Each structure stands twice: as C-alpha cells, then as structure tokens.
C-alpha cells in the first residue's frame, strides 16, 4: 500500500478499534507516520478522524489495537505519557487559557527543561514567536487575539514541545490564504527536521499541496493510504463518499418559484461567520453544509438570537430583532438546538411539559395551566409524529434520542404560527428508525408554508431532504447547490474543495 521508507515510524497505529456505545467510531485502523513525513488524514465529518487523533494523543483508550510513539507502546489513556514520548498536538478548538497572556500560555506549554526563568518570560516568548515568524503582543491576553492569530499560536505551542510527532487537527479553519502558506512552510520545515506530522484536514487542495501521503477514513474504516503525488482530489472524494443508504426520505413536492421569501438575511456577521446573505422561501427546506467549525452553527444560533450578530435579517417582511432569543421567538422563528440536553429540553420534566412549554399561555385558564387541555393538545401529535413513550408524564430524559427530538418538534406544531424552523443536526443521536419520522415532520411543516434551514454534518441527509444546499467555509457561503444537482458527491466535493483560501496559491 505504501513504500516503507528508510525512516522509522514515529507514530504507528495497529488495528485500532473504538466504539462509543452502539456507534463504532473506528474499526481495525492501521496507520504509520514516519519521521520527516507529512501524513494527511482525510474523511467526512464523523468518519473517525478525531477519534483516531484522540487515541494517538492518549486522551482516548482504544478498545482493540495499540498506538506506539517512537516504538514505545502507549499505555491506555495517558495524555501525559504521550507528551513525554514526544507527541505535540494543535487542537481544533485550541488549548489557550484566554485570560492569560500569550507569553504565559507559551510558558505553560513548553517542557520543563526548555522553560526560561519566570521573569524572562516575555522576552523569551517574543523571540520564540519571532523565530516562527509570528508577531503578536506577547503580554496581551490571548482573548485579544484574532481567531487566525489564535490558530497560529496553537500550532506554535505544539511546536514548542519539540515533538517527534506533531498532530494537527484542522489547523487552517480560521486562516486566510497567506496564513495558510505561512503555516505550511512551518510544517514543512518541521518535517525536514525529522518530525513526523499527522495532518488532519478536510481541505483537499491544502492536503495535496502539503502532505507526502494521505490516508482516507470512511465510517471508521481506513480506505487506503496513498502517495499524494499519485492521487487526485476526485480519487479521494470517491473514497470518502459512498456510505450505504440507511434511510428513506420523504417525497419532495415541486418547489414553487413564486413562493414568498419568508426569511431574508442580509450581510449578517457574527463571531465566527459572515457576512452572510440568504433568502429562504415559504415551503423550502434549505440545507447548510460544511466541515465542522466553519461558522454554520454560529450562523444558525445568531438567527435565533442566541448568539450576538450584526447586520440584518427579516422574517415575513418584518425586521427580525436578534438581540435576544425573544425577538425571533415572537416573530415565529424556532430553533431546534443540536444540544438537546443542554438547550432544547428540560431533561427531568415530563414529555408533556417539554412539549407545551412555548404555548402555555394558550393552554391556561385564568393564569393556571389546565392539564387536560395540555394533554388534549399533544395527544394527536404523539401519534402523528410517532413518539414512542409509556406515558406523557414520564421524564423526557427516559426517552431515546429520536423520541426526544420528536418531542421538541412538537413545539412548532403546537404553536401553529411558526414561520421559520432552524434545525441544528436534527438527527444527531437519533436511531435510523426514527429519522424518517423526523424528516417527514420537517417536510410536513414545510408543506404548511414554513421556511426551514437544516444544518447537518451528514451530506446524505442534506441531499435527501433539502430543496437547496449552501456550503459554508470559514464563515461564509462559498457555494450554492440547486436541487437538481443535489447528491452526496456534489456536496462533499463542495466541502472539501471549498475555495476561498489556499487553493491555487500553495500548489
């Protein structure tokens, strides 16, 4: 499969398997990263990349198989040992203590023997970063840095540990083209010095530009390792896609081009996205695709008034007040949060209470909620959405993920005046059987005239239920895929080849 170079494997995973509950995240994955090699790991969202990184860095213990660093087998679940053996990691979501200064963060990151005296920290940090061609105010708190600077700083911290193996998890999500070139130069320099680099990314142009070899993961299984010189983007995409179809999708009625635009967004900006312009018509289901961490979630939450944003949005012709969740709620914009336990539901309250929480005023008589009215309101929906439960009074946390999601979907049905549904990962943690019911419920609301946005990390799902899909990268919409082109391959191609940075420059 690969040429066994003269360099020894600094990172070697042999037959690694890992399951989380019923989900098999990795199945018998083997991978070698040699000294001096840049080895890319690519795959769709949820293909097992992060799990493999977690195991390589000692944070997760494999169920089967083993990982060796520089020939020494990593004991189960010991990040400290991984560090000692020479693993340096740049985390996708960073390891910065935001309130501490840049220098203090660097000071904590370096190994004991490389640490300067406490009093010389600032000068040392400045020199160290200058050597990496990174110029930021070292005494300023990390919180004052831009996202791009934070990302470069994260890589710098990993380099400071003088690793034998450098693990980079999506290191360019916040970087502009110049910064990507800069980062790649740094990484190549490290490789020339004999460091083995495992480079996780979904950006195929960048991967092909910087890596020596590339391993493709799909569904937790390694689909092969290749010399980058010998493969094309199309080859890799072909390996990444093609999961078996597990679930059927509801019928899509023909879209009426004259349908009223219900939700209109104009240059909306937030912490991690923007500016975004978008219009969603009545009856339309719009999908948002993209690799994780490119602003899709923040965009959706900003529309729901949960996250801060600037710019403007309107619903049904009226301006949407997104300064708090109240404005969108009153205007008929409903968010189905992806964090069901934390945000969408009250885990210990009953199914009934969770379903009716937004319409209590209507169900109340003289200020007191009449339980009988509540029950009557939800009874029909329980059957219609196929919620499986023993009683409406059982705590919602005792239901399966799919049934929990169905209960949160009851809310827009109960309200009746909903104009827009914003669904974040509507089938995450939902068993296959319940997915169809959820798709059908979303489609039913769309047929009633609701405009729906679905953010999903599953291209098959988006291709199956949406009338149109937009792809986000680095916080912006970079591509729009019309209905007649929708398909898993088309979406994945758009995600991995996302233009906007890197491409055409570093190659």
């Amino acid at each position, binding site marked *: 499969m690969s040429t066994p170079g003269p360099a020894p494997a600094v990172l070697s995973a042999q037959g690694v398997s890992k399951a989380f509950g019923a989900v098999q995240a990795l199945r018998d994955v083997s991978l070698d990263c040699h000294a001096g090699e840049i080895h890319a790991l690519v795959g769709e969202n949820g293909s097992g990349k992060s799990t493999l990184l977690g195991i390589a860095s000692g944070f997760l213990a494999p169920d089967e198989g083993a990982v060796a660093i520089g020939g020494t087998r990593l004991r189960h679940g010991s*990040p*400290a040992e991984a*560090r000692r053996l020479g693993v340096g*990691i740049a*985390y996708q979501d*960073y*390891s*910065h*203590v*935001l*309130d*501490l200064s840049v220098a*203090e*963060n660097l*000071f*904590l*990151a370096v*190994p004991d023997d490389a*640490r300067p005296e*406490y*009093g010389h920290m600032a000068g040392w940090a400045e020199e160290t970063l200058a050597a990496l061609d990174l110029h930021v105010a070292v005494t300023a708190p990390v919180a004052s840095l*831009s*996202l*791009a600077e934070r990302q470069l700083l994260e890589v710098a*911290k990993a380099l400071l*540990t003088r690793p034998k193996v450098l693990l980079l998890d999506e290191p360019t999500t*916040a*970087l*502009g*083209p*110049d*910064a990507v070139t800069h980062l790649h130069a740094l990484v190549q320099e490290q490789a020339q010095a004999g460091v083995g680099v495992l480079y996780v990314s979904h950006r195929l142009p960048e991967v092909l530009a910087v890596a020596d070899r590339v391993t493709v993961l799909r569904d937790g299984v390694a689909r092969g390792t290749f010399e980058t010189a010998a493969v094309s983007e199309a080859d890799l995409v072909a390996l990444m896609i093609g999961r078996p179809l597990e679930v059927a999708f509801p019928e899509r009625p023909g879209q009426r081009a004259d349908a009223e635009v219900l939700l209109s967004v104009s240059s909306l*900006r*937030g*912490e*991690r*996205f*923007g*500016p975004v312009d978008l219009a969603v018509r009545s009856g339309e289901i719009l999908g948002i695709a993209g690799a994780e961490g490119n*602003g899709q979630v923040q965009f959706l939450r900003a529309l729901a008034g949960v996250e*801060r*944003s*600037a710019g403007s949005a309107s619903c049904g012709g009226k301006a949407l007040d997104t300064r708090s969740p109240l404005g969108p709620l009153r205007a008929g914009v409903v968010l189905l949060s992806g964090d069901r336990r934390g945000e969408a539901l009250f885990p210990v309250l009953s199914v009934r209470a969770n379903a009716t929480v937004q319409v209590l005023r209507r169900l109340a008589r003289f200020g007191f909620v009449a339980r009988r009215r509540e029950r009557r309101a939800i009874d029909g929906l329980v059957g219609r959405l196929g919620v499986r439960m023993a009683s409406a009074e059982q705590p919602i946390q005792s239901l399966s993920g799919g049934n929990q999601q169905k209960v949160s979907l009851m809310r827009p049905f109960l309200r009746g005046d909903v104009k827009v549904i914003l669904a974040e990962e509507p089938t995450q943690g939902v068993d296959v059987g319940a997915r169809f019911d959820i798709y059908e419920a979303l489609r039913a609301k769309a047929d009633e005239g609701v405009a729906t946005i679905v953010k999903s990390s599953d291209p098959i799902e988006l291709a199956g239920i949406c009338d149109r899909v937009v792809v986000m*990268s*680095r*916080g*912006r*919409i*970079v*591509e*729009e895929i019309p209905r007649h082109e929708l398909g898993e391959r088309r979406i994945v191609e758009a995600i991995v080849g996302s*233009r*906007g*940075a890197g491409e055409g420059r570093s190659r």
Partner: protein
Amino acid sequence: MRRGWLPLVLMGALIVALGAYTAAHQSAFLGKENLNALMLEAMPLVLVSIGQMSALLVGGFDLSVGALMTMCVVTASFTMTPSMSGLALFAGALAVVGVGLATGVFNATLIQVLRLPSIIATLGTLSILTGLALLLRSYPSGAINPDVITALTAAVGFVPYAFIGAIVLAVLGDVWLYRSRRGLAVRAVGRDETSARRLGVATRRTVLFAFVACSLMATLGGFYLAAEVQVGSPIIGSQALESIAAAVLGGASLAGGKGSYVGAFLAAFFLTEIDNVLPLFQQPTEYADMAIGLLILLALVLYQAPELISRYRASRQRVEPLAPAQGEEAPAA
C-alpha cells in the same frame, strides 16, 4: 496584573481609614493591649481566608472550613489537655493536623474522583464534621493546654509572632502565585481546566493540592480559635462564609483563577477590625454583618467595573468580523 492591585489598595486604605477614625474618637483603640487583642482575634479568620483563597483560585469553594475549625478545637480538647506535656502534647497537635489533612484529602477525593461540585462536596463534609464535633462534645467542655495557648499567642512587643508569620506567608504565597510556574499553573486551572490539562498541567494534582492546602490552613486557624476560646466548644466555627467574603474582598474571582493571598489577609483583618471597633462605639455587632454584606457587593461592583464597562461597550459595538485579514479573495459563488 495592574488591575489586580485594586483589592489590596482598597483593603489597606479601609483598614487605615477605619483605624484612624476610631483612634480619633476612642483613644483606647490604638492602645497596645487592644492592638494585640485585635491581631490575635484576627488570626483564625486570616489563616482560613488564606486557605479559602487557594480553593477559590482553582475555581472551587470550601464550605467545610468552619466546621473543620470547630472539629480541630474539639479534637484539641481531647488530645492537648492541660495535664499533657512534651511529646504527648506534640503527638496531640499532630492528631489535630491529621484531622485537617484527612478532611482535605476527603474533600479533594469527593471533588476529583466522584466529580462532585466543590460547593456540594464540602457542604456534605461540613455536616459530617459538625455532627462529629457535637457527638464528641455536646456542650463546651475540656480545657485546652494553657502552655500551648501561651506559645501560640507569644508576641514581640505587642505584635504576635503568628501575625508576622501570616504576613510572611501571604507575601510568599503571592510571590509564588505570580512569579512561579506552579503558581501560573494554578491560575490556569482556575480559569480553564480543559485548556490547562491540554497544556500539560497536572490539573487533578493541582486541585487536590489546593483543597488540602485549604484544609491545612483552616487547621492552623483552628489552633488559634482554640487559643481564643480555650475550651472544647462544638459550636464556634462559623468562618466558612466569612472566609469566602474575605477572599472575594481580597480580589478572588468566584469563577476561579484570580486573587491574592495578601488581599485575603488584608480583607480578613479588615473584617475583624469592624468587629473589634463596633463595641468601642457601643454599637451592636449586628451592624457588622450588614456592613460586611454591603461592602462585598460594593467591592464586587468596583473590582469588576472595568470588565463590565468593556463588556457593555462591546455589546454596543458591531461584532468583530471574521477576518482572514489581508489578501482574501472574493468567495466563489
């Protein structure tokens, strides 16, 4: 760090201001005897507040310190009796320290192993210790060895050695906190445990250390409480909330990662000063509670004012756009 000096300056100024006002009206206040009494009176709260600061620094609370101090007094009434001397007395003191150490390890275990929130874990410990103390002494009895009390309260001039020792300890603590890697690690854990762990800080050991240190400081405070009441009283340790108040007035953030041992020292001393002064003006001590409550609220507003103002400004401004800075090409349609 510059903002970090505010609590120290404020507490220092309040101590001096209250002292000067009192001295102007009541000459007895600056008498050596009263100053000596004030310093000794402050010792239990000063010591336990320094301990509480450690717990707050790693983002926790220790509600069990007051009960632990009571337990120490009760233990001492059995293990450090007037009839003892020499080695037996030393062993008795070790037994008291052992109680503190065991409590610290117990708290840390609840927090680290069972992953309980510290406020709940130490609330449990508080109840256990309170019950245990009442079981051992259902009413105040059992004198504490007077030689020990004399030794604890020894002074150079009118300044107790212990008071000097506490100052030195607090200063060294701050130097450690702001001028050493371990101190930095503690502050990092308090602010963001996940990031600290990823940076290679032994976060579990740090939290364990902080809670054991807190209990040991409470134990030291317990010795001085014993010296004050001189008898095994099961109902005297009420310093838990006061020590949190002192730590907060001294600059601790309830979110962890911020604070100063000197600040805790000064604040604890100031709170004791209020208690000490009120009787001189023939005022009921109930005013002290109310004054302390108001002070905490005022101090919190004052300490956080810069942050609140900047947050308010930020909310008024447009949000920072995602800026891959220069050289960005227009996104492909």
